[in-house]
């Protein structure tokens, strides 16, 4: 009765569409199938995929983290600025990571203990983090450039290992770690339990509130890591990214792959499938030279199609819908 346990659920549909589009693009677009383009494709969605993994962990526990991008932008921009103003690299990274962690912990605490709905807690935290960062941390312009002192760390985004771009390798490694975490560790399993039925999880003795906080904390760490890769790849961190549609793209890849926003259902595979679809789509559209705004429309329509499909596979009506679930 649920998408993931069905033989032909949303994940399979999306995967089939991805394959179909891949074949179509390979046939009709020059250079699409070239190794360079495939690596470029993967590389372009690596960061999105990593953020998607962070979002997955939060969504599994029936949450959502809208502050992911703000957290990423501000914490990494601050790190870059600290390095630029003479702070040792290690310290700067520790401070940036610490900032991201503290902010996501605050979100987690607000959600778990103050019982503020995640949507609003993270929406407000995102707005706050951006505002605070712009007002008090980032002194220069919107864009903070990668300082020369960044040394070895700049290879994170730019280097290649055996010809494969490092971000892609990192994304795969992240996926593996998250997979193992969710499948084989106690907190990983408890996240599923909390997302599936919070009241039942509490009765069985699962520390529901700490688990919720943990989810958002992991989200914060993932955001910082993704930001570091982005910054080293494009040599800068543009804090205006917060005002872009990026957070919606992150939700898009998670939901597309078939992760249920009501929690408890989904895994790493879903996120990978969603990421690949967006990667193929964006890459193809870019080659076809489709306007950026139009790309947004197309992506949104696909997201809409995905949630419509989800509503047919997992029907919600007045009897099954949860009160206050928006």
């Amino acid at each position, binding site marked *: 009765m649920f998408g993931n346990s069905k033989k032909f659920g949303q994940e399979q549909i999306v995967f089939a569409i991805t394959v179909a589009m891949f074949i179509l693009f390979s046939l009709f677009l020059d250079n699409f199938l070239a190794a360079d383009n495939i690596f470029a494709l993967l590389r372009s969605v690596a960061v999105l995929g990593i953020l998607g993994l962070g979002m997955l962990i939060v969504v599994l526990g029936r949450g959502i983290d809208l502050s992911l991008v703000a957290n990423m932008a501000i914490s990494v921009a601050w790190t870059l600025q600290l390095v630029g103003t003479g702070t040792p690299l290690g310290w700067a990274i520790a401070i940036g990571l610490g900032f991201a962690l503290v902010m996501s912990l605050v979100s987690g605490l*607000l959600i778990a203990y*103050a*019982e*503020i*709905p995640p*949507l*609003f*807690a993270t*929406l*407000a*935290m*995102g*707005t*706050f*983090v*951006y*505002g*605070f*960062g*712009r*007002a*008090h941390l*980032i002194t220069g312009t919107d864009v903070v450039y990668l300082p020369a002192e960044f040394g070895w760390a700049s290879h994170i985004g730019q280097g290649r290992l055996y010809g494969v771009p490092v971000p892609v390798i990192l994304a795969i490694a992240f996926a593996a770690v998250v997979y193992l975490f969710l499948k084989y560790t106690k907190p990983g399993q408890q996240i599923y339990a909390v997302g599936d039925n919070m009241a039942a999880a509490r009765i069985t003795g699962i520390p529901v509130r700490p688990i919720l906080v943990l989810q958002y904390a992991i989200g914060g760490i993932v955001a910082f890591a993704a930001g570091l890769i982005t910054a080293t790849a494009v040599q800068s961190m543009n804090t205006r990214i917060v*005002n872009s*549609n990026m957070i*919606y793209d992150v*939700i898009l890849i998670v*939901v597309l792959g078939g992760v249920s*926003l009501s929690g408890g259902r989904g895994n790493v595979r879903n996120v990978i499938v969603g990421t690949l679809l967006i990667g193929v789509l964006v890459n193809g559209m870019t080659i076809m030279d489709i*306007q950026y*705004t*139009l790309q*947004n*429309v197309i*992506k*949104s*329509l696909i*997201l*809409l199609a995905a*949630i*419509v499909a989800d*509503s047919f596979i997992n*029907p*919600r*009506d*007045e*009897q099954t*819908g949860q*009160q*206050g*679930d*928006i």
Partner: protein
Amino acid sequence: MSVANTITKLRYRYLPDHMIGEILSKNWIDNAIPFLVMVAVVGVFGTLLPNFFSGSNMEILGRQYGEFALVVIAMMVVIVVGGIDLSVGSNFALGNFAMLYFLNLAELPTGVSALLVILICGGVGLINGLLIGYMRLRAFLTTLVTLIIVRAVVDMLLLEYAQQMSMSFYSSPLWDTMGMGGFGPLPFSFAVLVVVAVLGHIAITRSRPGWRALAIGGSRRSAYNIGLPVRRIVCSAYVLSGMLVGAAGVLYAARLSGAGTDTGMGMEIAALTAAILGGNSLGGGRGSVAKALIGAVTVLVLTNGVLRLGLNSGSGPMVLGLTLLAAVFIDVRWLKNRGKLLSKVYVSPTLMEMPQPRSTEDGPLAVNDRLSDVEVIALGKVESPEDVILDENDYLYSGSRHGDIIRYAPPNYTEHEVYAHIGGSPLGMAFDKDGNLLVCVGGMGLYRVDKDRNVTKVTDETNRSTFSVVDDSRLRLADDLDIAPDGKIYFSEATIRYEMHDWPVDALESRGNGRIICHDPKTGKTHTEIRNLVFPNGVCTSHDGQSILFAESWGCRVNRYWIAGPNKGKLEVLIDRLPGYPDNINRASDGTYWVAIMGMRSPALDLALRMPGFRRRMARRIAPDQWLYPNLNIGCVVRFNDKGEILESLWDRKAANHPMITSMREHKGWLYLGGITNNRIGRVRLKGMDDSWSGWSSYWGKKTGGQA
């Protein structure tokens, strides 16, 4: 010591503790915190910013407020039905663009353009509504998608037409009025807002669609199950939201006459913050136009103020984020704890110094066994006969807790039938001159059952007191009544602070929460005669018809109130220091009166009544079933005369047959007994009383011929 006593007395007499609970139980208290926040924000920025309150600044703010508040009301409309609309910002930009396009490039008249824009934005709302209402998609994600798509569409349109639009400059008197003028001191957009707000308030509080929307937001499942057209109403909420946003876009276009890519950017967050700050509940069911307006003022002043303070670029979002957090935090906490807080503070005991009771060791109140041979009627067949009454044909009537009036047939009263069904808890009863049965129904008011068994409402409201916080115009607990010779009905309302099922809690307070009310059938008017009585209960017209006697249960006294003659309007204590809590009072055949004592005083409760602090702690800290209540298990019947002298008493010392008594009725040499916790009616033979006397004839004279 005595000084301390005096202070305590004054404190309980003049400090209205009970108002806290009453205020907390009002619906408008929801707006108190948002309102205070608004006042604080306006105060802070008013002092920080020079010329904040100047006319020109007010005019600018008023104009912006008109637009912004429309968007907040739009957000409120969807929040009320349990949704959310993130597309308001993009839709606003679309409205703005479309308006300028129609005027400058399509060269349509202003009115037609505005109408078209509202329809277009309503169309965006319709898409949201179809997806969310009919297809049951999640509101958040769906409106997120429309947010992106509409924004992209606007961007593409701007790319196409921005250049052309900036070349032409439309102008017409109406358009200029919308942008710069207004009605007198009111800016145009503000005037529009006033109209929308008034209409919206009426729609949401006083119309069927508004109520249905609130019901759906409160519980979508229940609304669906009772058959409301849930999908259609949810859909129309989004359409309405889109149209309101369109109107705001038109006003914005009139004010600035320019379209940019950042129009309406982030407006969804500002509007959402405002709606939540005003106290509209996420998830639906609780919202009002007033809440939206309050929140809109706070957010508008806040964002404008931060901007004008000249802080750096991040401060606006930072303050907005913090405010949203604080608002949602307070909202969540308030919703969660309001009921808890209310139940803790509602019971508000006051000081009650009970005088030493009269002795039950000797004298007329001495305990005896005169009720031990009570004859039992309808054992196990009636529940909760608070009052009993007999008509001229010897039929016996009683109420029951199921809301029925039950009639028992003479001579043995073994047969019974449901005489009429009223509902509520039928309590005191009386026959009027024409033989209609008048009944005080707890929870409903005063009702009449005529001889054809038709039930009609006599009254369920009285005049509202000027300064009472709870709505005391509604009758909560009409208790007992009697009819004066001129036909006026005097009845008691035991308490205005508790519902029928909570009546013993009123004893914990022992405040004067009750009143005597008079209904005049000739004029059909009801008015409150005496206020602030301590649980007024039984009412009885004196034999001479010049006064009414009524019991104040928790005060353990019987009062006389003159309704005619030279003393008219005078209130005096007739009997005090009773050893128990007096209930119904009725006439006896020899010109005296019977009063039922429903329970006896106990030293523990008497002591507790002197210690209001103790009772307050008790009400706050322990569960209601463990509170100290008056004993309502054992009582007696007492006879007294017009001078207030107690003549005799009837007890059931062994508590075998009929210990619990709330009312008694003398009829042809028998005394019939009712009790509110009983499953029976009792009757006992009276010695030395008039065997032909009946209550009805004592009031209305001997029956003549076929009458009555």
